[in-house]
């Protein structure tokens, strides 16, 4: 028998306790915001401003204009030459060196092929590939624009970027950051609130008060879901202002999905809290585990398609992965319910699983021997 009045009483008590600790309240609202802002501003995967040094042994008008062409996009910034092309890379002052041979313009004018050596620092694999592609494309473009290409290409690609034609990375990162912060912080707060009752021994009073496990847990869940709703409003509101995020479709999938997601996140915290006896580090460790799973395994930054098989399976049970679909659809893609109907269902199923598992742990509402 579950009594609504008791759930409400439990919920009111949780909220009263929560708002008592000013530091925690401040951190609970500022941390998600701060994390979201850091991600929104600081994460840019697109390579820009890569330091490039040019060793132009030809120093003719043609070679100079070739060099200038390389820096025409904002992908590269010039750096001073070092002792040798390799030394510049060794010291880390440039990520790539382009060596233009002395006979560069002579050979080209004679319509003979000339070798240009490009040394790329392979330490940063991602950048290295981009550098290669970019230098190749620029060189091609250079040849075409100077009419040095013998003939026009037959097939031309007409590439259209959909949903985000400007290629703004914040449009991709910020909705992803929602999934991250709304996972970590609600679960952390609710886990702490359960572990704390165990540590302080107040749980004995709960056991003695005839509350059922459902009432007790639901009281906590509702309290922290409402805190999490507050966090959501702040984070999304600020994101709309700062990053100009707008709804790309009707907001109902987002609203429904967010509520289910917050519920799952709080249930995860409750689950961890009810399993761990009294260990600060258990909670902290889980916070880190949650961080890593929501951050890396969700597809927030790195594509889940690249994961090895085991991790790929693992990422399928990570709610953040499904919530990402919902937020990105709501703010960028804009297909609405037809595109994401399955995501809230999966998230909700995980929530129920977590809640039943934790109520099973607590079901006796008695001390263990």
């Amino acid at each position, binding site marked *: 028998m579950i009594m609504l009045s008791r759930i409400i009483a439990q919920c009111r008590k949780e909220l009263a306790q929560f708002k008592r600790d000013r530091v925690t309240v401040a951190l609970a609202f500022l941390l998600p915001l701060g994390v979201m802002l850091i991600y929104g501003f600081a994460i840019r995967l697109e390579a820009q401003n890569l330091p490039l040094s040019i060793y132009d042994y030809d120093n003719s008008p043609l070679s100079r204009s070739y060099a200038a062409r390389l820096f025409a996009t904002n992908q590269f910034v010039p750096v001073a030459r070092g002792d040798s092309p390799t030394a510049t890379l060794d010291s880390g002052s440039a990520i790539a060196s382009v060596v233009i041979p002395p006979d560069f313009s002579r050979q080209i004018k004679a319509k003979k092929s000339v070798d240009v050596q490009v040394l790329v620092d392979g330490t940063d694999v991602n950048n290295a590939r981009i550098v290669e592609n970019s230098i190749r494309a620029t060189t091609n473009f250079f040849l075409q624009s100077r009419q040095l290409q013998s003939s026009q290409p037959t097939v031309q690609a007409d590439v259209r970027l959909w949903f985000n034609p400007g290629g703004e990375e914040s449009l991709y990162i910020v909705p992803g950051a929602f999934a991250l912060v709304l996972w970590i912080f609600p679960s952390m707060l609710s886990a702490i609130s359960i572990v704390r009752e165990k540590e302080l021994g107040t749980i004995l009073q709960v056991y003695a008060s*005839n509350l059922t496990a459902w009432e007790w847990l639901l009281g906590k869940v509702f309290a922290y879901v409402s805190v999490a709703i507050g966090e959501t409003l702040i984070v999304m509101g600020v994101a709309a202002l700062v990053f100009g995020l707008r709804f790309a479709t009707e907001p109902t999938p987002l609203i429904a999905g967010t509520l289910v997601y917050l519920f799952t996140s709080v249930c995860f915290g409750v689950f961890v809290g009810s399993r761990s006896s009294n260990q600060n580090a258990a909670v902290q460790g889980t916070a880190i585990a949650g961080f890593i799973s929501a951050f890396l395994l969700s597809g927030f930054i790195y594509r889940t398609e690249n994961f090895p098989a085991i991790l790929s399976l693992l990422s399928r049970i990570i709610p953040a992965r499904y919530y990402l679909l919902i937020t990105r659809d709501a703010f960028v893609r804009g297909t609405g319910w037809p595109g994401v109907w399955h995501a809230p269902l999966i998230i909700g199923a995980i929530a129920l699983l977590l809640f039943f598992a934790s109520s099973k742990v607590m079901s006796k509402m008695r001390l263990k021997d």
Partner: protein
Amino acid sequence: MPKLSSTQNQLIKKNTASFFSSPILQVEGLSKQYGNVTAINGINFTVGQGEIFGLIGPDGAGKTTTFHILAGVMEATSGRVEVLGKLPQQVQLQIGYLTQKFSLYSDLSVAENIAYNARVRRLPENQFQPHAQALLQQVGLADFQNRLAEQLSGGMKQKLALCCALVSQPKVLLLDEPTTGVDPVSRREFWDLLASVAAQGVTIVTATPYLDEAERCHRIALIYKGEIQQMGTPSQLRDSLGLARLELRCDDVFQAETVLTEAMSQGETTFCDVQSFGDRVDVLTPDQEIGKQQIHQHLKNHSIAAETIDVNDPTLENVFVSSLRTSQSDPPFIPFPRDRYRKTEAEIAIGAYNLQKSFGNFQAVKGIDLEIKYGEIYGLLGANGAGKTTMIKMLCGLLPPSDGEMTLAGKTENLHSSQIRSRIGYMSQKFTLYDDLTILQNLRFYCGVYGVPSKLRSKKIEWVLKTCGLEGKENTLTGKLPGGWKQRVAFGASVMHEPEILFLDEPTSGVDPLGRRQFWRLIRDFAQQGTAILVTTHYLEEAENCNRMGFMVAGEVVAQGSPTQIKAEQPGQLIELKTNHAQAAANCLKEAFASWRVAIFGDAVHLVLDNAEQQWPQVEQRLEQASIEIYSHRWIPFSLEDAFIGIVQRSKN
């Protein structure tokens, strides 16, 4: 004249025996096993309506387990428990349960704590609020509704916890050591509250490790090692002993104790027990006259002059000790293996002159003068917030005073130097040992950190293990020891480097009476060898062990002297009244006298009068008007607790 409710009127007609006619709580053959460990082993008892039933025993005796089962938060291994005729889990709403110190949410306010407890018990808002207000009024918390629980003093916290338990108007109240860490004044107020709650028909089961509190129960059960050793009213238990207690006062208590113990163990006397305190020796003997003669004779043989011998009732502690002796032998007294010899000189070990400490505008210590000599045991007593902790921290050099002079071990400056600290021993009530290390690791650590020379270490560690009876268990994790055992190991750890000065902050909390006696014997032994000892405690029965003591109230020492001196200097008389209804009598007397002067002890009322000859007729008259019948009254000597409360209350006015 106070109107008596119908329940009270009914209760007036009942005497103690009639409690059994309406059993509220029945326990039969209750046992609990944790793995291989038996926590409780087949206990039986019954508690009737309106009765205060005490479970008295040391830490680890099985009290808390019993409460867990009675409150329905733990399953019994076997046996039957019925509360109000049902299983505890079925009637949890009728049970109020106060756990040791964790009943409250410290980050909720007074009002919020009460409201939460009421709401989870499904009380309608309009019903519990007036009741809660009345309760808060009664315990004096009405003005602090918005204060956070963590900002309340220990005594107030427990009163609030009691209110939380009472707000749902339970029929049964379970209190697991409700007064641990609470000062004597608050403790007495708390027990007064309990008495009035019981008088309204609530059945109370309470636990306490302290026997002076047991006196205030209607019936008590002595529980030890998971079994009930004895059960009955306090006076029944005392009578069952059939012994008289002779209080011998003389100059050389230590010598007298040695002589009398020697004589007892040789079988030359009728003595059953010899125990020394700060300024007296207690001797238990079946016949007081023969006992007196034997004492005189033996003291004369060793040319010790006896000042006085008083005859008194045995205490509950005497009962407990003799009961325990049937199941367990006394822990051994092994003299400490000394490597430094110090003469007992009448030098000042700790001196404080006009010592003051302020925190901002708050003056915690207001100009205290204090001198403790080598070889002396000095007790520093006081209510919570009286400035005791600040005082100790200053005396042991942890906290610099705001003003005044200090000497410590002959030094007046740089009192926190490591050179001085190596000559000091310090043991506080809770924080001494590392729970996650084994006993041996802890002892080795303290040996090392105090710089005990390596070749002496094993000898000292062996002594601690033997004294605590832990030989062969030295690789147990310290956290697994019951509190009382831990305290003994902690004491050992703090004296291994043979300190000249020893600070003991509530050293005996949770230690059983036999262990406590051994504890004090060790402390006295150190004092004999010239160590200056400063002790604090909330338990005044124990303070009798001090040579001298000081009572602190609001940052000042208001009384100082030997236990006998302090009791003797107490003005007025203490009267024990037996009436047909203790609670009604107490209520009636409180209208005429300040409430601290009236206290209920089981079925008796204690009353402090400044001038008994004059005031007694007035008392009789008042009770008669309230139609309360006086069965008997007698003058009884002040206990140290009575003296303490008197002093504190008088200096407050």
